[in-house]
Structure formats: C-alpha cells, structure tokens
C-alpha cells in the first residue's frame, strides 16, 4: 500500500439488522490534510468513522494506519494508534475542570497526577493551535464552543494525529464556526489530519482539501480542492437516480386542512427555531418537507401537533384557530402524529400492544365513564394488528421488545385508525428495512387517497419525491422554497436545502 496515505480504509462493509450502513467503502486520508466527509443523514458517515475509531468492528474490509493493518477493539485502541474523534454530543463531566476532563480515562496519567504540570501541558497545546481554553475552568462554566475546544485539546493531549470532528458546526454560532475553522487550518498546517463530517456544502467549499461524498452507505465520489463546485457536491450527495415512482393517482384537491400563517417558534435552546413559516396542506395531498436535519423539522412537527407553542402567527386546522392549544386540542381535531422518536414519544415502551393502541382513544372510544373498555381495547388491538400486519409474539409483551418495523406499523395502525384529518409523519421510515419502508409508504398513500392531509417530514429526498405532491424546503427554520413535486429538480432542491435560494443560484 502507498506510504503516502496515513490512513486507508479498504472495502469497509458494516451491516446492522435490516440495514447496510456501509457498503464496500474506500477512503484514504493523507497527513496534514483537511478531509470532508459529506453526505445526508443516514448516508453512513458516522458509521464509517465509528469503524475507524474502534466503536464498531466492520463486517468486511480492512483498516490500515501508516501502512500497517490494524484491528481496533475500542476507541482506546484507536486513540493509542493516533485516531481520535470529537463527537457531536460532548463527553465531558460538568463538575470537573478542563484539565481533569482532559486526563479522564487516560491510562498514562499516574495515580496521583500533578495537576499543575498537566495544566501547563494543556496550555502549551492550546496556545500552539490557537485553541483558547483555560485548563482550570470548570466545564459547566464554558460555552459550547469552548467545550468543543476542550474535546479537541483532549485528543491532541493524547497525541492523536488524526482528528475526526462529527458535525462540528452544528452547535456553534457563526463566529464560533469561523474560529473553529481557523483552528482546523492551524492543526492541518502543523501536520495533523482533520476529518470533518458534515452535510453543509459551504463548509466543504471553505475548508476541505479533499472531500469524499457518501450516499446510502457507499462512497460515490472523491474530489480534490479546486476540482469541484457546490453543484457537483449537491449532485453527488443527492444522487441523480431517477426517482422510483409508485403508482400515485393525481391528488384530488380538497379543502385546506392545515394552514400556518407567519408562524414563529423557539427551539429547545431558546433561540428562534422557526421563522415566519406559512404553509398549507390540503386534504388528499402530501406536502413533503425537505431539509437537512436540524433546520426546524422538529420544531415544525411539534408546532403543528400542539407539543410546542407558537411564538407568533396562526395555526388553523379545518378552518378552526388552534393556536395556543395543547396536544389534546390537536388530537381532538383529528391531527395524528407519527413522531421522530417512536419509543420515546409515540409509544409507551413498557406497556403492551393493547395498551399502546388506545393511547389516543382512551378518553374517547375506549372509555366507559371513568373505566376503560378492556374488551373493546383487546378486540381493537386484534383487529388493527391483523389489518396492518403487525407481527407480535404476544399481545401482552411490552412493546419495547418489538422490531423497528413492527413498532412503526403499530404506531401507524393507531394513528391511522383514529381516522385523522391530518397526519404529521416525521422520518416515518428511518431505520426500517425495504419491506417495512414500502409498507409504510403504501399506508400513507392509502390515506392520501382517502382525502387525509399529510405533512411528511423526511431527510430522504427519494422518499419525498416518491410520496409528495408538493415539496417545501426548510433551511435554518425558514422555508426557502415550495415547489410542485412533478418536474422538481433534485439539484435545485439540494441547493435550497443548503440555503441558497432560487435567485442566488449560480450557473456552473
């Protein structure tokens, strides 16, 4: 193997039950380069890097470092070989100081460490790369950007020559991102290799020496600096494949079911998560929401189901103003919700299928005064399980033991059986295999044929193209465009997802 490569991944394949996360992926990293790993969510970037850092063992393929074949059993092994990763969710102890966090888990540190010596070392490292951190500060006192720098310093302190940053700018402000990029350039200039996992095109344009694009678990292209444009990247990322069209009869346009007018909402950090959203969904229509995760999808789905209050604006369901109502108000008006987090919100993991199937109806159809209609609930469960093809070992086992596909069937069975006016489906096929995906899609299209309005939030453009009648694109909490699905151009959507509005699009 070529000695010029610092790291070489050859033919990496990693399978999870029902999913091939990586298929025959090759990747090379050179010393001192900034290498971007670009791809949509679920394209296999994180899995690939988890293989490189010893978190997962590949089913097939080999990893070479400095020409030597390695087999990591844990991230510890990887760090020893000089490969370290900074995860999106920081792994720091809030009540410890920066220095204490840096040496945490480092087996070279003596039983009674000399903290002042370690603090000096940390200061040397941080000033060497312009990574401003105070080793004596407590982590709870730090901003997000500072915490990230602590994680980077931690890896440098352990002598890592390859640093992998997982979506490093996802949590940063623009100024912090700029600072981070300067740090990354400095590290590369001093001979370290930095891998940046991202789905933001402009970041790739800004810092990458080389970029490898992953799509559906496969490495589809590698470009060198100067040899690519934003459009090339978008194309490679989204794919040119002709979208598999299912038989979808033309939408029978009915009345507007959901209407949002100039809606604003905060995200969990207390910042604006939705900005001036105006959308309508008609009965018998699927409105697909395209966008890279974290651009307001969660906030949008919560606002239209009553889980998150709107800061401003108006939400109407079937012409009734429901702004300010809670989830119960939305449920009672026929809003069904297939949430992103199946087991954390949509279903009650410790309860059995019978009890889970009455979660939306226990106050209504399944109630007899203060009592529950147990017999009704059981026959309801049997009927739905048959109709929706849910496979169960027993009606009375907690649902947390079911597979992802069956959980989603169970959830859809409940939501659809309430005969909703509107279905809000968030990443409805995430983690499902092909058969389960098809089943879910068929169910949604059946609902569309019956005149239900459907708001489909997905990161998978193919899914959006396949199901939607119209497509709205979200970027940083705002709608950057709404287009009819027929004749829509994947490239154009890809660019809208990256925040370039239609007007600003430049020709190649």
């Amino acid at each position, binding site marked *: 193997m070529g000695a010029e490569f610092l790291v070489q991944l050859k033919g990496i394949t990693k399978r999870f039950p029902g999913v091939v996360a990586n298929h025959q992926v090759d990747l090379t990293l050179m010393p001192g380069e900034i290498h971007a790993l670009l791809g949509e969510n679920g394209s296999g970037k994180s899995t690939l890097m988890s293989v490189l850092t010893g978190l997962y063992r590949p089913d097939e393929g080999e990893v070479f470092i400095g020409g030597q074949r390695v087999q990591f059993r844990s991230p510890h092994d990887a760090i020893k070989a000089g490969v370290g990763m900074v995860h999106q969710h920081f792994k720091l102890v809030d009540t410890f100081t920066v220095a204490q966090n840096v040496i945490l888990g480092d087996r070279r540190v003596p039983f009674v460490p000399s903290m002042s010596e370690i603090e000096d070392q940390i200061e040397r490292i941080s000033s060497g790369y312009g990574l401003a951190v105070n080793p004596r500060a407590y982590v709870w006192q730090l901003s997000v950007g500072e915490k990230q720098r602590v994680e980077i310093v931690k890896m440098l302190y352990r002598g890592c020559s390859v640093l992998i940053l997982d979506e490093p700018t996802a949590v940063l402000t623009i100024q912090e991102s700029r600072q981070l990029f300067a740090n990354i350039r400095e590290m590369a200039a001093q001979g370290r290799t930095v891998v940046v996992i991202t789905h933001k095109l402009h970041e790739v344009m800004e810092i990458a020496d080389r970029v490898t694009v992953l799509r559906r678990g496969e490495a589809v292209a590698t470009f060198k600096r100067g040899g690519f444009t934003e459009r090339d990247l978008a194309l490679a990322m989204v794919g040119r494949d002709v979208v598999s069209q299912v038989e979808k009869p033309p939408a029978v346009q009915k009345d507007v079911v959901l209407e949002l007018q100039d809606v604003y909402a905060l995200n969990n950090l207390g910042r604006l998560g939705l900005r001036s959203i105006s959308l309508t969904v008609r009965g018998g229509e699927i409105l697909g929401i395209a966008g890279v995760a974290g651009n307001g999808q969660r906030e949008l789905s919560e606002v239209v189901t009553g889980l998150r209050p709107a800061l401003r604006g108006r939400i109407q369901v079937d012409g009734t103003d429901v702004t300010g109502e809670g989830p119960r108000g939305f449920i009672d008006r026929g809003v069904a919700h297939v949430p992103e987090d199946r087991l954390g919100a949509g279903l009650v993991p410790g309860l059995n299928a019978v009890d889970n199937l009455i979660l*939306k109806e226990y106050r209504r159809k399944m109630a007899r005064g203060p*009592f529950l209609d147990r017999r009704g609930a059981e026959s309801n469960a049997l009927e739905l399980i048959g109709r929706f093809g849910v496979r169960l070992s027993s009606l009375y086992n907690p649902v947390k033991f079911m597979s992802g596909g069956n959980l989603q069937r169970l959830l859809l069975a409940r939501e659809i059986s309430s005969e909703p006016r509107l279905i809000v489906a968030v990443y409805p096929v995430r983690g499902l295999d092909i058969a389960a995906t098809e089943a879910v899609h068929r169910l949604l299209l059946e609902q569309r044929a019956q005149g239900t309005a459907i708001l489909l939030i997905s990161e998978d453009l193919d899914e959006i193209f396949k199901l939607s009648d119209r497509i709205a694109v979200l970027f940083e909490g705002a709608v950057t465009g709404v287009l009819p699905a027929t004749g829509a151009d994947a490239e154009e959507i890809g660019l809208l997802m990256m925040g370039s509005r239609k007007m600003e699009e430049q020709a190649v």
Partner: protein
Amino acid sequence: MKIGLITLEKRAAPSPIMAVMVPVVSVFMALLVGAIFLKITGREPLPIYFEMFSRAFGTRYGLSETIVKSIPLMLAGLGVAVAFRMQLWNIGGEGQLFMGAFAATWVALSFPDQAAYLLLPLMFFAGCAGGAVWGLLPAIPRAYMGVNEIITTLMLNYVAILWVEYLVYGPWKDPHGYNFPLTAKFTAGAILPTMGDSRIHAGLLFGLTIAVVLWVVFNRTKWGYEVRVIGDSPGAARFAGMNIPRNILVVMAVSGAICGLAGMAEVSGLMHRLQPGFSPGYGYTAIIIAWLAKLNPLAIVLVAFLFGGLQVGGYIVQTTGVPATMVAMLQGSVLFFILGGDILLRYRLRWRRSPDSGAPGKGVGA
C-alpha cells in the same frame, strides 16, 4: 455487556418464569444470608427459623399478631405503590403515616364525647388528609420545578416524626400519664372495632378494600392508565396530551393519604393513643413490600402478611437471645436480592466460551 467470563444477553421478551422466580429466590437468598450471620454468631439457624415461622404463622396468637402487624405494612405498602406506579419515588411513607396519625389523634382528642359513627369517619378522613398534605408538599416542587422527590419526601419524614414527638412530650402529654410521653387514651368512640378477642382491628378491612380498589383503578380505569403511561414514558404522555403536573399532585396526594390512613389505623385500632415510636419504620418497610410485590396491590396484601410474620417471629426469637436487628437485616437482604435479580427478567446469563469470540478476521493490532 460483559462481566468477566459471563455475558449478559438481552432477552427478546421479559421472562415470565423469572418474574415469579426472582422474588421467591430472593427471599431464600436473604434467609441464607441471615443463616450465615446466625452461624457466625454461634447460633443454629434452622431451629431459629423454624421457631420464627411456626410461632408467627402456626399458632392462633402468633397468626393474629402477624395480621395485626401486617395492617400498617399493607396500607403503607399500598400507599407508596401508588406513587411508584408513576415512577415517583415516595420515600416519605413514614412521615405521611405519622401525619395521618397526628391528624386522626387531633380529631380524637378534640371531640372526645362524640359517638363512634361520627368520630371514626372523621378520624378516617383526617388521617387521609394529614397524609395527603404531607404527600403534596414535596409533589408541588416536583410537579412545577422538577425538584427531586426522593430527597424531599425523605426529609419530611423527620419533620413529621419530630412534630409528633414535640406534641406528645409537650402540649398533648397526658396530665394523668405519670409524665410518660403519651397522649391521653382515646375515648371509646375513637377506637376502631376489633375482631373477637384478638387485637385484629378494622384497619384490616381498610387495607383489603383499598387493595381491591387500587387493582381496579390501575387496571381498569382511564386514570390508572394515565398513571401507567406517565410512569413509563413522560414523552409519550405529553404526546397523548396528558397533564403530567396535575397527575403528579393527585398521585402523591393519594399515596400520602393511604399512608396517612395507616397511621390513623395504628392509633385508633391498636395504640388507642399517640406515642412516639409507634411505628418501627413501617413506612420504610413498605417500600420493600411494594417492590417485592411488583407494585401489584393484591400481591402487596400477601407480602405484607409475610413481612408481618417476619416481624412477629423476630420479636418471639428475641427471647432466646437473637438480636432484633435480625429482622431488619433479612428485610434489607430481600430488597437487595430483588433489585439485583430484576436484571434476570431482561437479560440472560451466558458463560463466554472464549475471551474474544466476537472478533472477525485474524490480524493483529498495530
């Protein structure tokens, strides 16, 4: 997950056999631990155990005393189980029991001349109210600010116990009581009826009735359903539009009320007065009972009966020099084994064949 050579494998479904085996085996393991200690201290465990169980369950007197002891355990166990169902860790059963006893005593001492048909219902509701208030105090900060209820309920126990002590050593001390820290004896109207010539009082009926009612509430009502959903998954509860803060308040009030009733039944049915230390930690033992019974109200009745017997047996063998703390040790060991054994419901133990059977390929590390 791997521990040495043993691998824990997640089961596809919780094991129904283990659900029964774990509590049963836990009790035996606890007895084994107790036996080791008895042996170390130079006693023969088997005769002592035989003595304990035959006297607690085998004689007419022992059996009736066992039932008497099981009444507060049963009520307090049912009380804390209500909160546990919603995963609210009410460790304050003891304090709620004391406040129930206090409130009932206040009624008994304030209206000594009333007839039983007026006084007893009044004391019943006072007992419930006293416990409910003590349950609500920690529930309010929990519901609206997320303050950990384990700490607050535990701390309020000491407040309640000291409050009762203050009363019986001070303002409520019986002037004709030779300066003992006791209130005056209750009048006839404030005393719960007993069964025949035994000391078994009507508190047993409270316990049995509440057990059945709770079973129905948990398994057959909308509210019981909400409690189970909130307990298992607050996210799903919000998703379904359930009001979580309000349910926290209601559940803690009900939990406290039942524990308070345990206190009322003790003073009205057994002590016939308020005195310090009338509960040897029933509110804490109740936690073990509720857990051992897997929060099933009907099982709580049974487990409370067994624990009542354990206490009675413990008192009886004290006369032969076995320390009274033996019983506390057995109870603690039972809980220890139950909590540890619960993992077997969800996982299966496997001996690992080789230390590295999972690794693919053959190469070596760098």
